[in-house]
């Protein structure tokens, strides 16, 4: 074990001097911060007006104008077009009440626990993909440069070296996740300090402790994907191929599930055992509301609708664990037996 830890330490020595991991970390931090501060901008622009809606100048006439909910609440008959029936005015007021609830949700997302929740949503997709890139580059780079030979000649032992490298990647994934959450919590603390509560009063904020289970689940999904991406790269001995296949698998599996489930009625039960489906299911739940900005960022990063579907957490944990054992085991078996040649490039 001390050998594996030592190898992980020296792998870190090498990794930290490269630009790529820092660029990937910066991307993750920018997007998680964007979720918090994007929500802040959206909230502050909405809270002063209570929300906005579009109304016609006259009932049934063309042309629209913007009215604020605060105006509607204070003087409904003065804001709505003349002749608007009372039920329609009541419906507009209800719509404003819903906007108030949405404001309360946004306000909760600006609290530390809400900000962590947003960060976890983004990490579940964006960090996942960034880790795929890092794992493929880290494992495939050794084949491309031909550096496995000088490493193994130093007497590290093949399995110990692989375990050390994997440990480093898991450590990097964990550190990046914690850093993103801490930075989001810090930003949440600051945002909560400078933000006025919504008109209906400050809603009860979620406790930071509620984020522990979602954090662990997101971490589990990251480790599973990391193992798959790293193992595929090792089996293919190519950074480009490993990166392309692991990223494509993440996207294509979702598309295929949607397509095949609509054609074959029984395909859902097959889909429940597919890796990416379970990875998404494991990371799907986060406490608190999904702020618009976090949801948009996560969607932009490839999180499809219905991630996880009917899969239970326990089922996702079993499938993800099986994937880690299967892919990790296959990579270890092949790495232990395969001849090591010179630089392969790419």
């Amino acid at each position, binding site marked *: 074990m001390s*050998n594996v830890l*030592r*190898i992980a*330490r*020296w*792998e870190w*020595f*090498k990794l930290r*001097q*490269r*630009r790529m991991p820092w660029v990937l970390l910066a991307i993750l931090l920018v997007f998680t911060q964007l979720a918090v501060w994007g929500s802040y901008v959206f909230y502050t622009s909405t809270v002063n007006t209570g929300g906005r809606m579009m109304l016609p100048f006259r009932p049934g006439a063309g042309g629209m104008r913007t009215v604020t909910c605060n105006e509607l609440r204070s003087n409904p008959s003065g804001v709505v077009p003349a002749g608007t029936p009372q039920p329609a005015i009541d419906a507009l007021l209800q719509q404003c009440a819903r906007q108030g609830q949405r404001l309360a949700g946004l306000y909760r997302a600006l609290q530390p626990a809400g900000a962590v929740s947003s960060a976890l949503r983004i990490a579940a997709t964006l960090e996942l993909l960034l880790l795929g890139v890092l794992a493929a580059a880290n494992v495939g780079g050794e084949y491309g*440069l*031909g*550096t496995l*030979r*000088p*490493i*193994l*000649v*130093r*007497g*590290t*032992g093949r399995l110990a*070296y692989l375990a050390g490298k994997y440990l480093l990647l898991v450590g990097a994934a964990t550190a990046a996740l914690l850093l993103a959450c801490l930075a989001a919590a810090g930003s949440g603390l600051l945002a909560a300090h400078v933000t006025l509560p919504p008109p209906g009063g400050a809603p009860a904020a979620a406790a930071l402790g509620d984020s522990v289970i979602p954090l662990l689940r997101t971490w589990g999904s990251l480790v599973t994907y990391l193992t798959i991406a790293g193992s595929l790269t090792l089996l293919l001995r190519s950074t480009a191929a490993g990166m392309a296949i692991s990223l494509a698998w993440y996207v294509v599996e979702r598309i295929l599930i949607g397509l095949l489930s609509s054609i074959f009625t029984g395909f859902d039960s097959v889909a429940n055992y597919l890796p990416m489906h379970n990875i998404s299911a494991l990371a799907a739940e986060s406490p608190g509301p999904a702020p618009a900005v976090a949801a948009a960022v996560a969607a932009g990063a490839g999180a499809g609708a219905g991630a996880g579907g009917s899969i239970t957490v326990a089922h996702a944990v079993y499938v993800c664990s099986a994937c880690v054992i299967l892919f990790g085991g296959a990579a270890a078996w092949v790495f232990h*037996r395969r*001849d*090591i040649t*010179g*630089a392969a490039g790419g």
Partner: protein
Amino acid sequence: MRIPRGGVFGLLGPNGSGKTTTIGLLLGLISPTAGTIRLFGADVRHGHQGALRRIGAMVESPAFYPELSGRANLRFFQGIGRHGGRDELPKLLELVGLADRADDAFRTYSLGMKQRLGIAYALLGNPELVFLDEPTNGLDPAGMAEVRELILRLAGAGHTIVLSSHLLHEVEQLCDDVAILSRGAIIAQGKVRELVHAQGGVRLKTTDDARAAQLLATLDWSGAVRSEDGYLVVAAPPDRAGEITRALCREEVFVTEMVPLRMSLENYFLQVTAREPGAEQARQ
């Protein structure tokens, strides 16, 4: 294969003869399909990490991390191999002439500098046995001379160097002992001097060549005697020329001209590899 302790041992062979494969097998990078390999007594298939700590190797072209400096690369390989102290690096960098450029990124190094860093890597942890596979590959003449001089210095410092090369004049210059591989098998092995000299000869002219030929044929250490362009050519080690003169003088046959014929390692190599079955096909 017997590699004497100390000095430079040459591993020769045509392309595809199995030089790099042999080194790969010894280092555990390639799995043998049959047989066993023991290195310092440890079976390479069943964990020979301890033995590997006594070995340094540069196999083919040196592979390092391009974005790391030369020093950081050495530090990494030193740390991951768990042997050698921090004070070793400046000495090694000095030894291979890279002290001034040690903190520059590896990608900025010239081919010669990369080869020299590869040699420094092979010497990490002060190994007893150092494998250098084509260490002068791609170098200009000045670079080659530098690396050869470095190899001789290392051998002088007590390291055992196994030099794999197909540059025969280089091996002849540097190596004390040599093994010649062909199609994965050793076809000749021994001291360079002995292998080459055993194949040498002496060309001479005497006062009575016919009598001289008869006399030389009776010497138990000489080989065939033939007539060539008005000279006698006797297959015998050139350093026994004195004994030839003495033997002829005793019978009142006097040498008027004598030239030692030294066979180069290149000629010897071509001779022994040409005898191998399939050599002609391999060359084609």
